């Protein structure tokens, strides 16, 4: 498209003012295009982060796409056939069962923080299509840490509730 919308002037018949207006016009068109794309895409590709308590208390509708984060409840991981995995995500007050099929990330462990993305089912169970644990073993995913703090399970300053986390000396 190169300069779609700009007239092609082979013979220079433009005044200084016209040239400037043309340039400003192109600039506004490009910025308008960018702004339009940003607004359009933002409305479609945002996912909200929810804790198990959010899901229970806000009575969220089934079918909604979201991120669910919390701790993987100790003893809740069951592996089935064909890489099916079921586990429970808890924030200490409420728990949500999660089903996932595929390879779990390296840092997925019982008792540790996890963020899953997927769809809430009708019986308050969660079908995850991705499990994220792209965090370093020193700390929790930020959203999970915040939600645990809210539930009073982790005070700021404490080491992350993680058996391998080294206590940071001040």
């Amino acid at each position, binding site marked *: *498209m*190169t*300069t779609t919308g*700009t007239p*092609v*002037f*082979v013979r*220079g018949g*433009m005044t*200084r003012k016209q*040239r400037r207006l*043309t*340039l400003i016009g*192109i*600039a506004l068109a*490009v*910025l308008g*295009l*960018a702004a339009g*794309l*940003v607004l*359009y*895409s*933002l409305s*479609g*590709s*945002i*996912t*909200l*982060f929810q804790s198990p308590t959010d899901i229970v208390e806000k009575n969220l509708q089934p079918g909604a796409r979201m*991120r669910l984060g919390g701790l993987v409840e100790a003893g809740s991981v069951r*592996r089935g056939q*064909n*890489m099916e995995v079921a586990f429970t995500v808890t924030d200490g007050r409420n728990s949500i069962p999660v089903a996932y099929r*595929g*390879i*779990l990330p*390296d*840092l997925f462990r019982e008792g540790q923080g996890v963020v899953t993305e997927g769809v809430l089912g009708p019986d308050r169970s969660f079908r995850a299509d991705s499990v994220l644990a*792209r*965090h*370093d*073993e020193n*700390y929790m*995913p*930020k*959203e999970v840490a*915040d939600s645990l703090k809210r539930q009073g399970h982790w005070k700021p300053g404490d080491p992350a509730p993680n058996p*391998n986390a*080294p206590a940071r*000396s001040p």
Partner: protein
Amino acid sequence: MSPEIGHFALVLGLALALVQSIVPIWGSRRGDAALMGTAPPVALGQFFFVALAFATLTHAYLVSDFSVENVFQNSHSTKPLIYKISGVWGNHEGSMVLWVLILTLFSALVALFGRNLPLTLKANVLAVQGWITAAFLLFILKTSNPFARITPAPMEGRDLNPLLQDVGLAIHPPLLYLGYVGFSMSFAFAVAALIDGKLDAAWARWVRPWTLVAWIFLTAGISMGSYWAYYELGWGGWWFWDPVENASLMPWLAGTALLHSAIVMEKREALKVWTVLLAILTFSLSLLGTFLVRSGVLTSVHAFAVDPERGVFILAILVAFIGGSLALYAWRAPTLKQGGLFAPVSREGALVLNNLFLTASCAAVLVGTLYPLALETLTGAKISVGPPFFNWTFGPLMVPLMIAMVFGPFLAWKRGDLLAVAQRLTLAFAAAILATLVAYAVTTGGPVMAPLFVGLAAYVIVGALLDIAERIQLFRAPAATSLARARGLPRSAWGAAIAHAGVGVMLLGIVGETAYKQETIVQMRPGDSVQVAGYDITLQGLVPVQGPNYRDLVARLTVREGGVDAGTLAPAKRVYTARAMPTTEAALKTRGVSQLYVSPGDASTDGSIALRFFYKPMVLLIWIGTLVMMLGGVLSLSDRRLRVGAPKPSARRAAAMQPAE
């Protein structure tokens, strides 16, 4: 060497930085050559002391001095030598020292090689560099002392994060920082010009090589980081639109725009005010990147520190430098004289279009990166902006940019003729149509749009080659004449064409990887076979292997291609013993520019293991494309015009030898 020497050297460096911040600029205001002359030796002294501090820290790592907390937290006595060295910058404190070391290195280079700079400009540039150095040294000494001791000294260290124990990542941060910090030079030149109120074509000629150096390193750093993520994280992805990646992409986009607008300023004295603004914005984005990564406001493997004091300090630096320079800009920019009129359809016009699309895409990335932070601060809602957002904003903005990119070099300065250029590009259009049809015919599946993008890539590559062919009159003049013209062609012209072709090569790799990749996940027992993209892969067995500071569970796979043995693959599940941290080691088989990629999941108790196979056609072109772009940058940098710098008598002789552009 005692760590205290390093600490003391940092303090001395800070003292010198303060001198450099004040004295030269005071001299330039008073027109005092002696005061201005203090800048170069002080800059060299600063580099010496920061380098001494860095050497002291490196020494502490090499001898595993665990009485230094930083070494204790990030090193281990059994760690291989290269990771003892890279461990120095594999953590917050050490990486900040590296940041400042590179900053003072650039100041020292200006002091040493900036002989043809006017005295006032040189003094002002070094003073601005002094401000940045002082701010960051203060930050290190106040909040992130790398030399803090612990008593009693522990016997053994905690080891470097295993994900960072990789050759690619050992050199990724220094490259990235050379890029980030290199843009401080264009920033310093811009602020110095605003202070002086003097801005001419010679200024652009001085700024361009520094910007080009920073751009080449940043390109290398981003590319290296992307390849690291591709093979080390085990997900097979090469770009995640992670905030930390975006933090490095934004200065790259702005820096690319700056490179192009500086050409207009140098050749035509137009776009002055805009170029200065871009120089300021580019470094501001580098600072923003440093803030996002270092303050811990984002969550990723890069955030070593979750420490509010540091975040507030860097935020203060950010506000002071960005706010200060923009205020100075608002005050002084109107006094700069604009020159060089041009018609919308012209080389200048094309470069303006380039700048518009690059800055607009940069703004889109900025919105996507900061929106979740802003929303959480304002409303408390936690959201994530996923890759679809970036693909749907960034992608559509890149397409017109790439179409226009081919036209640009063919358009004449001041006033061009689109139709005439389109005629000269017939071959590029033909190549695009042919490539689209071929891609459509030979590929099955994949998105409908993919063949069109293959066509776009072919158009960009052929268009860039046509630019060179046209300039040397290939096939139109006798071969000897063409050869002579090719030799006489300025290196910057070669550089531009090659860099543009590199963009096309990279695009081809991106299309191949995203549109035509094949993926299979299977649970396998020893003896099981699977077929992936024409390869028969058999799991021979699972073998435990002991490494220097880790244990591997290796899945031994044999690969057959059309019944013929094609070697083995050995992906592994690895556990680093010091931190008991598991990682996934993917295995790759390269065929031309395509790759077969295997990454293992968890082994089950019944002796089976989950394996994820990818076939990634043309994937290597992504990084080969960036290498080609860097080659273009290096060629451009070696152009005589930039080495000579300011217009000098000898420049006339050089001009006589080369045909006019």
